[in-house]
């Protein structure tokens, strides 16, 4: 059994990477244990450690001449060697076909589940149940859009009546005539300030996300630290993704509105002759 490894230490976390090679002519069950002073943080799926992993290491089954790469993190400082093959007995080749030897995996003593492991198996092995984020964004967006449309509909219905148009125009004209400056600020600046604020926030988020994009390990570690954890960064990633979507929608809408605006031509002179 050949074992090679590298250890990297960054921000109080040791990342141990190893390659294991079964150089014998028989399948072997190999137990690889961490030599670091502290629990192993194994690779996880859906929050559940991969099969074969426990607090001290991993148990694998390797076919003859099979190579496998694996890695784990630990909070403890690195030691040399960081990992060791504890035992590697030969196993019956007709036994388990998967790479993981389920018999050798110790059941988690903390789980007082009636069916040890099977909930974890279901979580780890079956496809994700959560509806995609895009579906939820579409869901809420449609809701908002519907509401906006309804409001617009009410206004449009109102403005279909002649007198209402005049009423609206009059009130706007009154405001403008009375105190054009204040009317403008009252009507426009709060929303404009809100829009600017939103753009600033988006820009800030994108800037943060850019710092992590294609960053080397130490920059990324700094970014994780300053963000306050990987969870925060995941939330940021989610926000930036939805920002991108909204920005694209906005730019599409703005472009089509600009085209429509350019195409309009209010015949003021003709209208003046009418009145």
């Amino acid at each position: 059994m050949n074992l090679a490894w590298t250890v990297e230490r960054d921000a109080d976390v040791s990342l141990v990477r190893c390659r294991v090679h079964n150089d014998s002519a028989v399948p072997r069950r190999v137990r690889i244990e961490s030599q670091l002073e502290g629990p192993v943080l194994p690779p996880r799926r859906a929050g559940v450690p991969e099969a074969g992993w426990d607090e001290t290491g991993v148990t694998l089954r390797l076919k003859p001449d099979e190579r496998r790469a694996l890695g784990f993190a630990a909070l403890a400082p690195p030691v040399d060697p960081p990992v060791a093959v504890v035992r590697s007995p030969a196993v019956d080749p007709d036994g388990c076909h998967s790479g993981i030897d389920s018999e050798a995996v110790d059941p988690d003593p903390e789980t007082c589940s009636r069916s040890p492991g099977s909930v974890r198996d279901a979580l780890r092995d079956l496809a994700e149940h959560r509806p995609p984020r895009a579906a939820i964004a579409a869901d809420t967006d449609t809701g908002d859009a519907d509401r906006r449309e309804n409001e617009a509909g009410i206004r449009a219905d109102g403005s279909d009546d002649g007198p209402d148009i005049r009423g609206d125009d009059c009130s706007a004209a009154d405001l403008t005539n009375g105190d054009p400056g204040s009317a403008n600020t009252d009507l426009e600046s709060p929303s404009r300030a809100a829009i600017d604020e939103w753009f600033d926030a988006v820009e800030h988020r994108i800037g943060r996300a850019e710092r992590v994009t294609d960053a080397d390990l130490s920059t990324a570690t700094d970014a994780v630290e300053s963000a306050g954890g990987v969870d925060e960064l995941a939330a940021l990633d989610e926000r930036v993704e939805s920002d991108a979507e909204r920005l694209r929608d906005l730019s599409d809408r703005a472009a089509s509105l600009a085209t429509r605006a350019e195409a309009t031509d209010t015949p003021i002179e003709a209208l003046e002759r009418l009145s």
Partner: protein
Amino acid sequence: MILAVAGGKGGVGKTTLAYNVAAALDAVVIDADLGMADLPGGRGPDLHDVLAGGADPIEALRPGRVDIVPCGRTLAGARACDLAALEGAVTAIEQTHGIVVLDCPAGRRADAGVPLAIADACLLVVSPRAFALADAIRTRALARELDAGLVGCAINRITAEPPTAAIADALGAPASVVPADPRVGRSVSEERPVVDAAPESDAAVAIRELVGRMPK
């Protein structure tokens, strides 16, 4: 005891059967279909809240002829659910109320697998059509992987004589035939199980037969 009512396809009558079986067992029924809840909801916390850590499982229990733990209707709620919390929630209700029936979602994703992994036994609901049977066989395989013993299958909404023996053979469990009966269809929305509404009907007899196979 925790009984999962599963079936490969949607629309074969899992919810209706789960509700009526729960009535016959005097059990609590939990709507575990996180993405497409069917059992009547209500005000107050639901299973989405429980699995998002926002409510106690007992708080979500809604008393009625059959006690129900309803499930939320939103996709965002379904996305926020932590399936790892389902076992604790179901066990808490089992401890206070005895028997729990889980109305499982269709498919083979984790939300269908975890209830099967929690359950002591499962009941498959099958539609007599060939394509539905293929899905039921896949769900049967999933239940076997996750150690949910199959106690029986219900061939649901029968109008013509189904190939009962062939279906029982394919699934490897005794099959009961639940005839199409509008009273069964209405039972969930009216909250009036068929074993009460029409105790002598063929459907009620079939449901009692299914319940008789449950492990004691």
